[in-house]
């Protein structure tokens, strides 16, 4: 763990399934079951996958919004000390909360409608000890200017703003405490196409200015490709592939990644993307298939895939895949 800001090792989060009057535990939903990655300072890691694959649960574990079941989340603090966020008691976690912030998906649900922008954006400052209201107002004005909004807006309420503007407000709030790591969960998926580009540009600009590290959770591959240095793909709670952006698009080393990329409709009528459609459905994380979780939908599946679960391994420098045949086959 040399220059890594965050190192996630074998992250697990199980939710119990209860049954009957006594709420007997009859099984577990393995929402996250085997996620490993490192985040270097200043980079953007895109975390992609379909709904239910555990990408949001994984990102919430990192924020300790929920407590992980197992695994390690090693974080290097500002002072250079390495702590395990997975097991840190709440008291010790509190000072670190300012360093790790979140941008939410829904710009309509994530702002308090009864609070002005000053209070919405200023709340993290208040929590972190900035008691003086005038001081807070100055900082909020600075933050609003930073995200391209007029400082005069701070006395207005969220309902007066459009979706794109609200997402800017959400970004301003995330940046209020000078974070080092920002977890962005689908930050542009609720926005219109013409507004999406504005917010993506803003995120890139802010990252360069403040050397932010982003964990960018999204399902839209073209957006993730645009913003990420590296991309991690999740399927049924597991990380199935992790590689630099250019590499993963040039040569995916997992059949699921390849299928995911083929499924994206190309915005060009001259490119037909009909072939190689993935059949079947995503299995339930409560009862995943044997062996490789992807084998029932994989056209390259063999007997080995049905019985033996593949491990995440490095198939090329910096390129990890959870497939028995990675490196031997072209997907």
């Amino acid at each position, binding site marked *: 763990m040399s220059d890594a800001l965050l190192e996630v090792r074998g992250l697990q989060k199980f939710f119990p399934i209860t049954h009957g009057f006594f709420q007997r535990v009859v099984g577990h939903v393995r929402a996250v079951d085997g996620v490993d990655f490192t985040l270097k300072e200043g980079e*953007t890691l895109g975390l992609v996958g*379909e*709904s239910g694959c555990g990408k949001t649960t994984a990102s919430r574990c990192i924020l300790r919004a929920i407590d992980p079941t197992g695994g390690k989340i090693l974080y290097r603090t500002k002072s250079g000390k390495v702590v395990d966020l997975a097991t840190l008691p709440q008291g010790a976690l509190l000072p670190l909360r300012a360093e790790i912030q979140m941008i939410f998906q829904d710009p309509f649900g994530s702002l308090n409608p009864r609070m002005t922008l000053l209070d919405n954006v200023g709340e993290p400052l208040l929590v972190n000890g900035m008691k003086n209201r005038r001081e807070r107002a100055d900082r909020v004005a600075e933050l609003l200017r930073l995200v391209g909004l007029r400082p005069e807006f701070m006395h207005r309420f969220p309902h007066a703003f*459009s*979706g*794109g*503007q609200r997402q800017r407000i959400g970004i301003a709030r995330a940046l209020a405490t000078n974070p080092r790591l920002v977890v962005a969960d689908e930050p542009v998926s609720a926005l*219109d*196409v*013409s*507004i*999406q*580009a*504005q917010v*993506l*540009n803003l995120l*890139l*600009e802010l990252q360069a200015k403040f050397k932010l590290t982003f964990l960018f959770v999204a*399902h839209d*591959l*073209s*957006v993730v*490709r*645009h*913003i*990420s*240095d590296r991309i991690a793909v999740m399927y049924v709670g597991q990380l199935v592939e992790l590689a630099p*952006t*250019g590499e993963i*698009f040039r040569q995916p080393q997992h059949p699921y990644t390849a*299928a*995911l*990329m*083929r*499924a*994206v*409709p*190309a*915005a*060009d*009528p*001259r*490119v*037909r*993307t*009909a072939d190689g*459609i*993935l*059949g079947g*459905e*995503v299995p339930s994380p409560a009862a995943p298939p044997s062996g490789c979780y992807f084998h029932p939908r994989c056209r390259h599946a063999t007997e080995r895939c049905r019985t033996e679960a593949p491990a995440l391994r490095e198939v090329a420098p910096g390129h990890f895949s959870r497939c028995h045949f990675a490196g031997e086959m072209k997907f």
Partner: protein
Amino acid sequence: MSEPLLSVRHLRVSFTMDEGLVRAVDGTSFDVQPGQVLGVVGESGCGKSVTMRAILQLVEKPGRITSGSIRFRRRDSAESIDLAQLAPRGAEMRDIRGAEIALIPQEPMAAFSPVHTVGDQIIEAILLHGHRWREKGRKLTRADARDITVGLFRDVGISMPEQRVDAYSWQLSGGLRQRAMIAMALSCKPRLLIADEPTTAIDVTTQAQVLALLRDLQARYDTAIIFITHDLGVIAQMASYVVVMYLGRVMEEGPVDEIFHAPKHPYTRALLRSIPSLYGATRVALPVISGALPHPFNRPPGCPFHPRCPDAMPHCSAAVPSLQPVGTTQLASCFLHHDIADPS
């Protein structure tokens, strides 16, 4: 070109709110040819969904169609009728709705009743429009309707159709639910299918399956489809002809290849540039459309796009450009290409 199946002319739909009048659809015109897949693109608030609801006479209060015509050619009828003149709850409109024009809504979860099985809901529709399936002199029974439903489920690729007919919508996955919705829409062999963002709520691999299914069904039944989406990728893959809408008006229309490779309207051009592609450079600033969508109470005068338009001229804020031919195949409403303004 043959006579269009549906012809919308100068359609206006307004909502009278306490705060003022919202002109959701403001003079929209387009045609749908028989068997054509027409793509309608636009951002939120562009009026694409309201236009479709107007075609089905489903505009909810306080909204109403204020002017314009929606001419539709019914089955077994040479003359077209104006849907805008029909009573929303009248017998004729009810006979058309579902039977000749069907809708696939965006949220299949909200569209199905959770307390009836999906099969029952489709059987109900078939029985309601029973004469479309009845052979000579024989009354359509419930058992017949059930067989038809099972057949439809098989057609739309639902496995174990006999069992799935008796499932409730919440027991089905998103993809299956959308397939069941498509089965319901097709149950009365409509001539026009309106698909309102049918794949927006589902995942990309499931989306690919549903799009392939729609394409296949369209070819098999030769149904005309109006495909509404904000996803330019889906439009490029599905539509043969595209209508681009902005704030209740058609900005540009033309064959799909021209729209993507030779867009004429500055809005279409800007929209195409602003989407991150799977091939372009990464981590660079994307070209953006400056500003935000105006508030519906605050429509700009003149061309609705002029405050955000890179090529705006003084003239653009004074008059509304009308939709005029540009070249041989496209139409655009922009003063860059012609100087014909809309009357009024």
